């Protein structure tokens, strides 16, 4: 107990700051007319994703993201919704990962991925202004200029500059993830956030492809201080295409891990009713880390897998 008392006393300021961040986020969305919603944490089926390993609960799954249920609300006519929910991803443990974490997701009808990225820019700047009264973020000895708009860089250009190949022209899944972590991210400008845009179609997941260039998906990610903070899509609204992608991914998972995955029929039905829309997921723990100048997620969570 004395060791725990000391540990929790040390991070108290960070936990207070965390609560402030949550307050600013809720205020930001409430002011813009977003509805805060709650969807189930324990579900029958999740989106099949090869590199995200779900945690089972009595034969059901703990959610890896609230995306499927939030889209069912969108399909039913809800136009602006947001949620901060706990998500669970097996085996993810490191400086930036805990198997249980907090994800902020929001969706807008009539918007595309660029709109979601500008929402995120406004939100993050609002949080930093409120907590630090500054447009400069100090993180790990680096001053990061948060002035809007943040620089955009296409995935294609980022890879050509840092890794010497074009993943849009010829996609190689293995090499893509490895070079992203080893070459592309370390080469991003440390003094500004970076928005990486237009991912290869093969890495589209639930995003729609560009109409004028089907080799790329309308997907973008925000990186600040070397941390992957948020991932935005122009959402795929073609139910048949969504089913094809899910079935392909599920078959891949079955081949690799031998586990069958049931595809959510209520979700696939809802995709057919989705309006043009965009959604984005932002890691709340990571946003709090940036604001607390924390190098490890342990510093901003009262309890992680280390001390449960």
């Amino acid at each position, binding site marked *: 107990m004395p060791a725990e008392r000391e540990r929790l006393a040390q991070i108290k300021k960070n936990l207070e700051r965390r609560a402030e961040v949550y307050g600013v986020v809720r205020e930001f969305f409430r002011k813009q007319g977003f509805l805060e919603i709650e969807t189930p944490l324990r579900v029958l089926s999740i989106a099949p994703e090869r*590199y995200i390993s779900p945690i089972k609960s009595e034969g059901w799954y703990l959610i890896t993201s609230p995306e499927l249920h939030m889209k069912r609300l969108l399909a039913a006519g809800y136009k602006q919704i947001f949620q901060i929910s706990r998500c669970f991803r097996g*085996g993810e443990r490191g400086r930036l990962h805990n198997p249980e974490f907090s994800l902020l997701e929001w969706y807008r009808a009539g918007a595309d991925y660029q709109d979601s990225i500008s929402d995120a820019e406004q939100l993050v700047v609002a949080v930093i202004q409120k907590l630090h009264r500054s447009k400069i973020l100090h993180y790990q000895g680096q001053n990061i200029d948060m002035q809007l708009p943040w620089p955009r860089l296409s995935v294609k250009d980022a890879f050509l500059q840092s890794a010497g190949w074009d993943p849009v022209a010829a996609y190689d899944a293995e090499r893509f*993830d*490895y070079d992203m*972590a080893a070459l592309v991210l370390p080469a991003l400008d440390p003094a500004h956030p970076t928005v990486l845009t237009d991912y290869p179609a093969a890495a589209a997941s639930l995003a729609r492809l560009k109409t004028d260039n089907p080799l790329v998906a309308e997907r973008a990610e925000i990186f600040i201080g070397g941390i*992957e903070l948020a991932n935005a899509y122009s959402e795929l609204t073609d139910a048949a295409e969504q089913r094809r992608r899910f079935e392909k991914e599920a078959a891949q998972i079955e081949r690799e891990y031998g586990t069958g995955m049931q595809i959510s029929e209520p979700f696939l039905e809802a995709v057919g009713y989705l309006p043009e829309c965009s959604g984005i997921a932002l890691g709340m723990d990571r946003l709090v880390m940036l604001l607390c100048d924390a190098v490890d997620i342990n510093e901003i969570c009262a309890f992680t897998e280390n001390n449960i």
Partner: protein
Amino acid sequence: MEIEEVHKNTKLMYQGKPWNVDNAEFVKPGKGRAIYRLRLKNLLDAGTLDITFHSGEKVDEASISNQEMQYLYKEGDHYIFMNTSTFDQTFVSEAQMGDKINFLKEGVLVNVQLLDDRPIDISIPVFVELAVIETGTAIKAATVTAQNKSAKMETGYILDVPTFIKEGDSLKIDTRTGAYVERLTAKK
């Protein structure tokens, strides 16, 4: 063992050599494949190696046994230890010892880690008791302030101590940080 089970200070066999994991970093893009970046230190010659694994890969854990041994003396850059049950003698090189040489007194008992009967590392207690052999203005550690001065211990280790410490005093030292903790006995 699975790469997922590897942590800092896990001992591995890799390319036929034994290594200590000095640092293990988990890197994973949200939608992408997990990567484990390891910094390995060779347990025989202290050389380092950076290496990357993907999730699902397997590595060989080095089978390490522990044996209580008594530290006898230093000869050249070899530290001589004696197995307390067989009285066999063996040595550990200065490179393998690292910072631990600062805290090792002749005659103390330590745990020696063996790889196929070959000593590769020793475990020393978190706190050790060492006597001051010299203190004063002639000896300088990193900082000298109004409250601190430098002292040389019987092992040759030099550190900052409070100004009231005298030659012959016995001090408690934290081997994790190398810092002074308290005076145990003052010189009579």
